[in-house]
């Protein structure tokens, strides 16, 4: 591979833009296709499918084999609430290679003593989101169960189609949340994208266990392709 091509690929990643690298496995020829230029490429359909799945794989076109290296932007987790669960969740998420940011306007919670080595922002979610908008490669974990703090972020996550949206709170708390979001104009299908009560059902009870259950659910949303019709799956990209 040409170093210039690798640099271009890495630069796309730094910008949080998706891109694919196409390698002709017979000739060794390579080209970089940025997400915005996908349509013009001769392999457009195949590239689009690989990118949608977020998986690299081999495709065959007119007897030639091409390897598609998919580069999706790194996964980011935005945690609303510098609470006890977040203290456990942040180091676990780091270990899993996710970028984590914690936002909580309550300075008593969002104190550096409670959160070492984590991107911690003691600001309101709307102020943070203005500078750092969410996207499809972001997850939102809302943990304050305070509507004043959580709701703005939840709305933003629904609009940005975050791949995972979880919200802490009992069934009653969530029922009220659903009402508020309906009033704000979200459809039932949209609201159903919120995992609440948060986390995979493993009977989690301590803050660290809830953090683990939440990350497990988040990873399932990222990796499992159940939602994808079987016939459109690409065999090489398991």
């Amino acid at each position, binding site marked *: *591979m*040409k*170093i210039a091509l*690798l*640099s271009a*690929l*890495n630069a796309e*990643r730094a910008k949080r833009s998706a891109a694919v690298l196409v*390698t002709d*496995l017979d000739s*060794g020829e390579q080209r970089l296709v940025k997400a915005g230029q996908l349509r013009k490429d001769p392999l457009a359909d195949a590239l689009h499918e690989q990118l949608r799945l977020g*998986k*690299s*794989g*081999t495709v065959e076109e007119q007897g030639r084999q091409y*390897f598609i*290296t*998919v*580069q999706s932007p*790194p996964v980011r987790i935005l945690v609303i609430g510098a609470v006890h669960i977040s203290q456990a969740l942040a180091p676990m998420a*780091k*270990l899993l*290679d996710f970028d984590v940011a914690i936002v909580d306007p309550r300075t008593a919670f969002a104190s550096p003593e409670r959160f070492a080595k984590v991107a911690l922002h003691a600001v309101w979610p709307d102020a943070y989101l203005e500078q750092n908008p969410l996207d499809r490669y972001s997850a939102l974990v809302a943990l304050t169960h305070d509507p004043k703090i959580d709701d703005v972020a939840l709305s933003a996550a629904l609009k940005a189609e975050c791949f995972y949206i979880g919200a802490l709170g009992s069934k009653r708390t969530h029922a009220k949340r659903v009402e508020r979001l309906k009033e704000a104009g979200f459809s039932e299908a949209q609201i159903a994208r919120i995992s609440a009560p948060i986390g995979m059902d493993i009977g989690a009870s301590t803050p660290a266990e809830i953090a683990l259950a939440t990350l497990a659910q988040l990873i399932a949303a990222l990796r499992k392709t159940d939602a994808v019709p079987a016939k459109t799956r690409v065999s*090489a*990209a*398991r």
Partner: protein
Amino acid sequence: MVASECDILAKAEEWAKENRGVALATVIETWGSAPRPVGSHLIIDENGSFLGSVSGGCVEGEVVTEAMDVIETGKSKMLEFGVADESAWRVGLSCGGRIKVYVEKLD
């Protein structure tokens, strides 16, 4: 932590810009139970230093050796590993899977 595939590609660029000979190995295909998914990378420099993985440590040694040859000749190689492979007794995947690895030089 350097663990994600993209971090490894960033590291490869860094190595190449230090004028080290660098090869990039990529898992192209897997059959059966393979330890690392398609698209996983291993980068190797001319001294045999490496980062990342293409298996759970089963075939990295062989890939590194082949990669050093690729760095020298500049010619890409397609490697295949698995129990069905003749080299199974030497290097192979104990999990019973098979993998195909593409090794190319950064130039």
